Structure formats: C-alpha cells, structure tokens
C-alpha cells in the first residue's frame, strides 16, 4: 500500500487523476496480476509506461469501445482481473449493452475506469463530460461504482480493485492540480463512506472532486457559526445506507454535492434512502441540471452548477436561512 502523506498527496495531485491512475497501475503491476485494455487512449490514460513495461499484459483494441468490453470479459472469463479504460462517457454509454451482458449478467471481473469524468473535459463540451456515467451504470445490477474524492483515494481505490472480485466502475473526476482531501493515512474500504467533518447544523454528502470544495465550504461556514458535516460517499453502489441514514437522522435539511447529473447519482441515492426509511429530512441536491446547457471550461461549469466552494457555501446559507 502506497503511503499517504503530504509529499505523496502533493505529487499525485500534480499528476492529476489520470496520471495518478497510470502511476498506480505501473507500481501495482509488480505485486498484482492483471491485464489492461485501452480503446486508443493509452497515452491519455497515463498508461504509456505500463504498456511499455508490461506489453504482454496490455492490449489496445482501437477506437472500439463495444469490443473493448467484450474482449475484457473474454479475458476475465479465463481468470484474469482486467482494467479497461476510456473517457467516462465512452466506456459507459457507448458500450452499455456490452457492459450489461458481459460484465453484469456474467459477473465478469472487469474494472472499468472512466477517465476525466464530470466536467474535467471543459471546453470539449457535453460530448466528453461524464455526467451520466454513474447514473447509467447504477441501473445495471451488480456493478460496484466508486468515485474517489482525490488522487490519494484514486490510488487507494485502484489498489482495492486489485483484490476486489467482480465488475466495478472507477470514476475519475478532476484534472491536474486537483485539490487533495487526504494528506494523511486513512482507511479506504469499498462501500464504506468516510465522515470528514462533524457539524451540528447540516451535512454535505459528496464524492469526487466536489469533496474538497465541500470541505472548503464547510470551513467558511464554520467561521460564520454554521456547523457543517461533510461525508465522503465515494461508493454509489453498494451504497453505505447505514452511514447516510445516521447523518440524515440528525438534520432537518441535508445536502448532496456531486459532479454528476441530478438523476440517479448520489443525490438520488440519498433521496431514495430518505423516502424509503421515512427519515423526513429535506434534501438539497447540488448537481448538474437535467438539461444540456451552455458548456465551457471546468471552472465555468463548476460555477454554473454551483459546485465551487463559494457556491456551495452560498447555497447552504440560503437554504438553511429559508428554513428559518
């Protein structure tokens, strides 16, 4: 296990999500037996060094995501753990039926890695954003879905995926210089949310890069006398309902912040929990709206979606004061 400390956290943050992923694969290749597939995005995935050092464990199938999934399943059916990578929309929506049939239905040990999910592709626009990826897969049974909060957690998640048996989607948000959430050692377990801050007025459930922004927002609000909890719900499935319920029971209003559609992501998971358990609290979802709007840079999109630290703190202030 790579040590999480300030030096590593800073280095991974500079490498960014994809660079950290590639580095993790390279470093873990000596310890674990796995195969990596790419659909012509080896360099973009940070996997060039892996390809060069472990050529017998790497295949490029070309720009053919449906084949990518089928080939991965075929290799996995022979007992290999397979990592398949592409940009988030292309490795989910583009080949969804192959995922359904090969990975979910046959329960194949394939890890899908969705690169530059959320708004990371900035000016590329909605063709390249990963706003529906987790939600789409959340409709397909038996696929574990994880959105790591920062680069340290990406590393942890990739290592956890080495020994995790079954289909899994690892959703990478954030580009280079993604703000670190973790600078010290902690335990990452698939399916177990992580409380990051304890407050008495409300909670923000979050995942991916908004985690760091939620933490910043909470700090600002704390200075103003609003005491805010932050919980890193990195795993959408299996969802840590026990932890989410514990926090929902404490507050009249709870928040979710995610770089994902407001449909079928973290906000929806919390909404379902509140409804099904009759928890009675109000939910405010901060997420991409259910429509395609004007696109632009990462900062532009995060601002418009209300996911910057300032926007999150403004929203919480507003919603809680409206509550009286």
């Amino acid at each position: 296990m790579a040590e999480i400390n300030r030096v590593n956290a800073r280095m991974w943050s500079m490498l960014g999500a994809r660079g950290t992923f590639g580095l993790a694969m390279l470093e873990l290749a000596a310890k674990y037996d796995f195969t990596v597939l790419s659909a012509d995005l080896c360099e973009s995935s940070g996997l060039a060094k892996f390809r060069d050092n472990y050529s017998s464990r790497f295949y490029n199938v070309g720009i053919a995501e449906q084949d990518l999934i089928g080939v991965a399943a075929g290799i996995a059916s022979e007992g290999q753990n397979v990592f398949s990578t592409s940009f988030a929309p292309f490795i989910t929506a583009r080949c969804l039926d192959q995922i359904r049939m090969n990975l979910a239905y046959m329960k194949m040990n394939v890890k899908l890695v969705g690169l530059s999910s959320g708004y990371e592709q900035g000016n590329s626009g909605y063709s390249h954003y990963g706003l529906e990826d987790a939600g789409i897969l959340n409709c397909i049974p038996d696929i574990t879905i994880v959105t790591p909060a920062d680069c340290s957690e990406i590393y942890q998640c990739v290592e956890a995926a080495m020994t995790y048996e079954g289909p899994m989607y690892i959703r990478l948000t954030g580009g280079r210089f993604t703000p670190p959430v973790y600078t010290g050692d902690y335990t990452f377990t698939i399916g177990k949310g992580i409380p990051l801050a304890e407050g008495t007025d409300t909670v923000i459930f979050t995942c991916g890069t908004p985690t760091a922004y939620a933490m910043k927002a909470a700090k600002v609000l704390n200075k103003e006398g609003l005491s805010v909890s932050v919980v890193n719900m990195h795993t959408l499935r299996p969802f840590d309902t026990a932890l989410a319920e514990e926090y929902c029971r404490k507050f009249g209003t709870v928040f979710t912040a995610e770089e994902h559609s407001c449909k079928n992501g973290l906000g929806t998971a919390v909404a379902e929990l509140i409804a099904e358990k009759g928890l009675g609290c109000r939910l405010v979802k901060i997420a991409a709206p259910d429509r395609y709007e004007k696109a632009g840079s990462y900062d532009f999109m995060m601002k418009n979606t209300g996911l910057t630290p300032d926007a999150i703190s403004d929203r919480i202030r507003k919603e809680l004061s409206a509550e009286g």
Partner: protein
Amino acid sequence: MFDENLLKDKAKESRQLILELAHDTKGAAHFGGSLSSVEMITYLYSCFLRYDTKDPANDERDRFILSKGHCVMSYYVALYQSGFFDREKLWEFEQDGGPLLSHPVRNLSLGIESSNGSLGQGLSFAVGQQLAARQKGLGYRNVVLMGDGECNEGSVWESAMAAGHYGISKLVAVIDCNGLQSDGFTKDVLNIKEMFSHWTALGFKVYQVNGHDFNEIHKAFSEMDFDDGHPKLVISDTVKGKGISFMENNNVWHHEPITEELYEKARSELQ
C-alpha cells in the same frame, strides 16, 4: 472420427428433438435459425471441438460461443448428444427458474460458455478468451456461431478488426447464412453485398460451405491451419427452417408457436 452417416443420424435426432422441445413449450420458439444451424453445431460437437464432459471447465477445452443466442435449441440438443447432460434435462428448456432459457446463460458445468441473446457480442468475447490463451500459453480454440443478420451489428466488425489485427489463428467464426432475419430477407433488410470479401479484407481466411453438407463442412475445418496467423471465417450457406417443408425459407417460423396439426405434419416429415 468423421462418419457422415453417424452425423446424419445425429442431425435427424436433433431436428426431432427441436420440434419436441418447441412443441412442449406451448409457446413461440426460434425454429428457423435452430434448424438451419443443426448440421454445423452437430459437426462441431461431434468432430471438431475438444472437451471433457466429466471436466467441463477444463482449461484446455475448446470454447464454443453461440453468439446468435436465440438458436439455442440446436445448441442444447448438441450438448445433450455430447454428454454434457442427460436427455431429461432438455425438458428444462424454458422452465421457470431453470438453466436452459431461450437464450444461453453462462454455466460451465453444463458446457455453456457465455450468456448471449443480445446480438453481435460473441466474437469480442472469443477474441478476449484467445488473448487470455496466449497469456497463459494454452492452445484451446474458439468457435463462434453467428447469424448473417447478426452481421448488421457494428460490434461484429469491431471484434473482426481486432481478430485480424491480433492475428488470432485459433479463432473460427461461423456465419449461419440462412438469408433471413426478423424482418425478411437479409438482402432486403440491409444488403451488405458480399460477405466473403469483407472478412478477407480484415485478415480472415474465409471458407464457404453448404452448411447442410457434412462433407463440405468437414473439408473446410480439416484444411484450417491454427497457427497461420489468421482468424478463420466459415460462411455456412443454409436454409432457414431446414428439414420441415413448411418452415423452409418461410420467415414466419423465425419465432412462432406450432399448432397440433402442423406439429403432427412436421413430426411425420422428420421420421
């Protein structure tokens, strides 16, 4: 090993069992494609594929993928004839909660290699299994049975490109070219003109056979060199609904229930 008379007997029994299974479901069944693929599947399980029914998941087994997953009846019958399970089990076909649905569900203990039913996916899976064989130094072969209609799926061509690119010698794709698909003749629905040259262009070694003639099938498979750096494609020209006169080339029987009267007529024809 190759005994044409024995194969013909098996094919005859296969058609009889397909009729019985379809009749006993009391509902619609995929007659057409099951009947067109009888000789090919019979040949593969009798003469080509290497397997051990006492150890069905053996690493060295050849892997057969029914990519045109709706044609399960001829497949299940071949698995029974080969000894993967007994004759009684065939009657679990389409039984609630049972393992023999009308599209295959991966179950290695029964000899079923992959779950299919959504077309155009078996070839990719087989390419993956072949790449894994290379990694592990195993010499098993893959046969994938597809339909000509299935080749409408773009994913078929994605996997064909990969098979050609990686020069997967131990992969045989068979296209059951019965000329019909759900909405009619393949040449009317989506005419891809020339099946043969598409595949040779991608690096496949292509064979064309009368898919109801065991000698032709045997000749093609006997000629194959499984270390020549080329994936293989067999264009198996067949008649949809083969063996039952009123079903032959009649697309009504793609997926249809059978009346008692027609069942009796079919039964007498297959004697």
